């Protein structure tokens, strides 16, 4: 990361009709490719590479050729849409709407805003201070801070693409539920005294006036988030799917059922514990998880692991230590971990 890369030419904002037409054409073309992926994958595997039908290598290759473009196309589409959606939200706007809210309804609203507001965990501290000093209740602030990383669009896309919409919906629903419940519990515990005292003395500046954005600007923001997010995770996705493809073709079915199956009661807590020190994105882990599931691992256990990896990250706790005393951090971890445990057992029980 040393030296300067050539300056990226700035996007010219044009509102010409041809631009929209070209974009619509591209979407249609990609949707066509998407709908034919299964045929393309078997064509590549059996006609182009002439692999033996049903052989291990063929299974692995077909899986890879099918999943990589499928997940990347979905990911690009959703990240773009979410980027455009997020241009309607900002932390300042969320704060304005959450200040002085009552508990519970405030927790629900905060959890939803946590998903919709652009947020990176390195902003956790200024956001936390900005919220609590403006009168957003502590528990409501936590609902926001929990849902922002936990319910993320990359995980949602991968779950949808690899497990179907039911699992994606369950993940979205339970992720929101954990953020609401955990924030509510933290609010009830009255832990304001465990916020570092200097935080309450800070006088927040008024910030930046927000002008109305045009649709062209929103599209530019959508594209920027594609460049930023897909540009960052695509390699993880490809590697994850490659490993998944290997497992798909070579690991015998049922091998993992003995220690990752739903009958193993301790699998969920172990999965949560393993997830805490790991700091990764859902993108790299989920494709592997999907392949493991095919071999007998339980979905609840796998999801608990994933949620723990993305919602309870050690680096974020270290960042938050600046504003929170150890006891509040411990409470936060405990409450969220309990929520994830419940979700893990729930998924194992119902699916």
């Amino acid at each position, binding site marked *: *990361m040393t030296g*300067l890369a050539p300056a990226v030419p*700035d996007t010219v904002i044009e509102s010409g009709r041809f631009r929209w037409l070209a974009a619509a054409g591209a979407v249609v073309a990609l949707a066509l490719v998407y709908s034919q992926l299964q045929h393309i994958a078997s064509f590549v595997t059996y006609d182009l590479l002439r692999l033996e039908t049903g052989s291990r290598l063929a299974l692995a290759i077909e899986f890879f050729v099918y999943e990589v473009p499928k997940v990347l196309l979905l990911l690009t589409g959703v990240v773009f849409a979410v980027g455009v959606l997020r241009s309607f939200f900002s932390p300042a706007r969320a704060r304005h709407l959450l200040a002085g809210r009552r508990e519970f309804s405030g927790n629900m609203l905060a959890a939803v805003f946590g998903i919709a507001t652009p947020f990176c965990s*390195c902003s956790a*501290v200024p956001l936390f201070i900005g*919220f609590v000093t403006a009168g957003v209740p502590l528990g409501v602030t936590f609902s926001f801070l929990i849902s922002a990383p936990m319910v993320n669009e990359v995980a949602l896309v991968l779950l949808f693409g690899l497990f179907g919409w039911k699992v994606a919906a369950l993940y979205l629903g339970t992720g929101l539920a954990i953020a609401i419940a955990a924030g509510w519990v933290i609010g009830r515990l009255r832990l304001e005294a465990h916020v570092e005292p200097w935080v309450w003395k*800070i006088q*927040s500046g*008024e910030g*930046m006036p927000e002008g109305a954005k045009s649709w062209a600007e929103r599209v530019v923001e959508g594209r920027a988030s594609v460049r930023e997010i897909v540009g960052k995770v695509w390699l993880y996705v490809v590697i994850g799917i490659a490993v998944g493809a290997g497992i798909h073709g070579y690991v015998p079915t049922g091998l993992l059922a003995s220690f990752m199956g739903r009958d193993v009661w301790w699998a969920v807590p172990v999965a949560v514990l393993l997830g805490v020190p790991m700091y990764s994105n859902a993108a790299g882990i989920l494709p592997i998880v999907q392949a493991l599931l095919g071999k007998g691992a339980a979905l609840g256990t796998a999801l608990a692991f994933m949620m723990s990896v993305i919602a309870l990250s050690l680096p974020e706790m270290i960042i938050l230590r600046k504003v929170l005393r150890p006891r509040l951090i411990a409470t936060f971890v405990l409450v969220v971990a309990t929520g994830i445990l419940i979700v893990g057992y729930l998924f194992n029980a119902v699916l």
Partner: protein
Amino acid sequence: MSAHRKIEVLGPGCSRCKEALRVVQHVVDQGRLDIEVIKDESIERMMALGLMATPGVAIDGKLVVSGRIPKAEEVRTLLGIA
């Protein structure tokens, strides 16, 4: 030359903040501008400016970019030298 100008890049040192600094530094270096580039990682400064999402950019003490990496052209416009 006009009064002393400064441009601050605010953020706790995450990769996006470094990227924002790189863009700002690039604009100043390339244009041989007489503007001081300051990288401020302190939360106090962020709060004083009312910044809640990093990275942020402030020109002459006024917050102009919040929660994203600005483009070079945009920084030039904000500096009034485009």
